[in-house]
């Protein structure tokens, strides 16, 4: 039991969790209200870091899937599925905070804006990833299918992105990553950076726990088949 609750998972999860609480305090009490959009802009500090984690998670899924197919090491698949679950949670956060912000800023819950469209598709690719895993009789086959799906998704994503960007973008232009350096006021930049760091830490902590759970599951399944399905 103690092996599962290792510091490698607990530390980032706890730090990330505490930092997320601090982040919310900053968002509500510290950061100045943005002049053009008003209060609603504060959702930005949750929305953008969540989107970052969602995309990063998909990169991890694709990478682990590719190496899993190559080397066949089960641990890589366990890492992929753990990252995918975290990625799906954060993609859901993006999809929930986006419309809330959009309702006030753009006057509509949903619009076919490229990044919105793209995030919704990402969510569905994650969904397919999990459905394929749960719909196979042999877990090994499910792992292979899911890995193929993760890679195909990653290969097609640049094209999907290009295609949806073809529609005119309603999203604000980049404010942090641009050649002349960030133009955000320091308080906003600090809050945003804390958002990135805390969400990333939280993601890795959660992924680590999920990884431990997956390992326990596989061990339990192995034990069950060894003992002929009789509980010890």
């Amino acid at each position, binding site marked *: 039991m103690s092996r599962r609750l290792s510091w490698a998972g607990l530390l980032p999860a706890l730090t990330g969790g505490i930092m997320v609480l601090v982040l919310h305090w900053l968002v509500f009490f510290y950061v100045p209200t943005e002049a053009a959009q008003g209060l609603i802009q504060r959702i930005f500090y949750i929305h953008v870091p969540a989107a970052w984690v969602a995309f990063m998670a998909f990169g991890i899924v694709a990478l682990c899937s590719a190496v899993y197919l190559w080397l066949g090491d089960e641990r890589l698949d366990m890492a992929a599925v753990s990252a995918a679950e975290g990625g799906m949670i954060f993609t859901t956060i993006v999809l929930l905070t986006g419309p809330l912000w959009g309702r006030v800023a753009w006057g509509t819950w949903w619009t076919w804006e490229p990044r919105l*469209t793209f995030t919704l598709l990402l969510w*569905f690719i994650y969904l*397919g990833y999990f*459905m394929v895993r749960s719909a196979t009789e042999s877990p090994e086959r499910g792992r*292979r299918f899911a890995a193929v*799906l993760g890679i195909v998704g990653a*290969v*097609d994503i640049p094209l999907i992105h290009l295609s*949806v960007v073809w529609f005119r973008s309603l999203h604000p232009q980049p404010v942090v990553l641009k050649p002349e350096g960030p133009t955000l006021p320091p308080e906003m930049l600090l809050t945003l950076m804390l958002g990135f760091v805390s969400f990333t830490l939280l993601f890795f902590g959660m992924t680590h726990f999920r990884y431990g759970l997956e390992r326990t599951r596989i061990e339990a399944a192995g034990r069950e088949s060894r003992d002929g399905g009789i509980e010890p």
Partner: protein
Amino acid sequence: MNYLRQLRAVLWKDLVVELRTRERTISMAGFTVLVAFLFNHALDPARVDVQDVAAGLLWMTIVFAGTLGIGRTFQLESEDGAFHGVLMSPTPKDAIYLGKVGANFVILLLVTLLALAVFGLFFHLQYGERPLVLLLVMALGILGFVAFATLFSAISSGTVMGDTLLPILLFPLLVPMVIYGVSATDRLLAGRPVAEIAGHLRMLAAFALVAVFSGAGLFRFVVEE
């Protein structure tokens, strides 16, 4: 050379099987005509100018008909373990995949021609002076579609959910094809010059390339036992 011969053997085998059973072609063709018929009655001609939405309807019909037919690529061979025989043969897995993509492409191209004819008839479409460019747009689009659909059909037929899983896996990845295919078709139907769709053709070609290469590279992981 040997590789191409093996590829052609798989392609030809699938086409001959289809020619003899006509199972998938007939269901896709019937679907196409009936959907065009239903679309015609679903739209109020007094409020919607059908010519304006025809390109989108045409592509969606092909996507749905294709999902219906391509989803059954491995159906016949899964009976009596026939596909195991194919896999046991010394043919490289990617040659099997490309052969199946080729056969599916030919079948879906025929369905597309039928769809063009039926939509032209029902919706009074003018295919303009350059029907071959339109055909090139359709061919590039369905090549990418068929490549993804064949790969995912192998996946979904290996699950307990079967064909019902296919759209969920396939549709999110089709966005480039639908956006550029519909837009290019729309412009050609409106009589715009071909130069205007050069970028569309490039994107459709990129989509087809990505689909064919990722499918050829990954197919062996789907079918290995």
